[in-house]
């Protein structure tokens, strides 16, 4: 099963112009626990998908919101010459196919 088959929300957005934050949210507690306990969303795996070092990626579990948050530095500061996504709202797609 891939992450996109179980998550209700998989989204990305800037958290300030220098960071990207991704939220994976679930419809119920069981789905949340299943993914959180699987360890599939770990820093080193996500770092590989985004071409970063594991120490740059923070994975924060947030059970009250049935969500897992992933925060990482942006490749370029938002709006710098050459940026492709000023709001950072379309950088979630590498997560979609993560196998659980």
């Amino acid at each position: 099963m891939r992450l996109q088959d179980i998550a209700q929300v998989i989204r990305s957005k800037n958290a300030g112009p220098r960071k990207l934050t991704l939220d994976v949210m679930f419809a119920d507690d069981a789905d949340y626990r299943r993914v959180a306990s699987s360890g599939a969303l770990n820093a080193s795996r996500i770092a590989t998908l985004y071409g970063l070092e594991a120490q740059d990626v923070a994975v924060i579990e947030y059970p009250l919101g049935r969500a897992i948050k992933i925060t990482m530095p942006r490749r370029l500061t938002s709006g710098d010459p050459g940026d492709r996504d000023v709001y950072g709202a379309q950088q979630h797609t590498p997560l979609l196919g993560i196998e659980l």
Partner: protein
Amino acid sequence: MSAVARVRAQFEGAGRRRSIRLLGASGQLGYGIPTPAFEAGLAREPDLIGCDMGSTDIGPSYLGRGEMATAPDATRRDLRKVLLGARRKNIPLVIGSAGSAGAAPHLDATLAIVREIARAEGLHFRLGVLRADIPKPVLHAALRAGEVRSFDASPPLTEEDIDAASNIVAQMGTSAMQRALAADVDVVIAGRACDTAIFASLPGMIGFPMGLAVHMAKIIECASLCCVPGGRDSILATLDEDGFELESMAPQRRATPVSVAAHSLYEQGDPYTVSEPEGRLDLREARYEAIDDRRTRVTGARWQEASENWVKLEGARLVGERAVLLAGAADPRFIARAETILAEVAEVVRELVCENTPQDYSLFWRVYGANGVRASVPPGEAPPNEVFILGECIAPTRARAAEVVRTMKQYLLHHGYPGRQSTAGNLAFPFTPPEVSIGPAYRFNIYHLMRAHDLDALFPLEVEML
């Protein structure tokens, strides 16, 4: 008696305070405030109306150029709506991050609209104006004193960065906003401000717990975005000594414990803490309980006062003039070789427009359908049937940028490559001219923290009678 004084008077005296009601009218003033929910909110007799008007999400251009992101007519319509509502109810109106980026040109443009509305509608009120611009000598002095820090790993600030920035603002917090409210005003319009300051300042000065007030503010500054389904309708928060209740003023939007808790994730790197100039919000003990299927009660947020005040700075500098080329392509052989072709055309153009001088412009290709959004394409992905090519040039002058993209258009159209069959032209132009001059391009060159020894001096207040 001003609106602020009238509201504050209701909370004076001994005994248990009543709860305070705050109406989050808009998370982005200037993009439309739905009237039914706003009017439903006013009918609930709120003690304050707040609107956020800006952020850095929109990128560096607005801060750099000194222009609003919202359309003037839409901005006027929203300002008129909230001003009339606040004056009708005689309650304070607080607007933060005026004009999208909150620097002097944005604030002044917002104030001009407010004055125009007041004249046209015959409104009279005391207006508090808080400025957020950081004078360059102040920042130079802070830098030399070692009182500027990088933020989110921003490169160390230089003297040159300061000199080059076209606008520099700092985010004000509750202390600035409270100074304006204490000046006995009816309306506060602030330059760049923390969105929490808009809503937490009045409850804080009345004596409500700061942790709860800031947490509430963090949620309602986005109007009904914390609901399912999320939306831009006004939201009402009712704050007491132990917690706060949230209720969207649009009947179809439900504030549920999960939807409200999840809002702490939105555009925040960490859902458990929020840092502000005056302190830090700790949400580790926050709890969310349903009152009914449309309302949620929130408790448990804690506030930790800062021992030193640091403000977040934002600055943008000009990097050149931007021009773009817009074109499509559908030929499979062209698409398969697009990356190579674009690099070859860039080289051809460079030789033509630079001859023997160094390249004085930057060129960026984005091939939509392939790598327009993602910097790299995962291996094994099938090639697209069509692509859209955005060629971007940033050059020292508008004329130079236009020259580069016009030349680029011609040579990309006719570039030959091995196996080419479509020898009459490589590109489909949706219209001509396909080259567009965008105007000046900016980047954020200041995103740092500065120690503030005197927050009051940093965010001066002016009071104006309208």
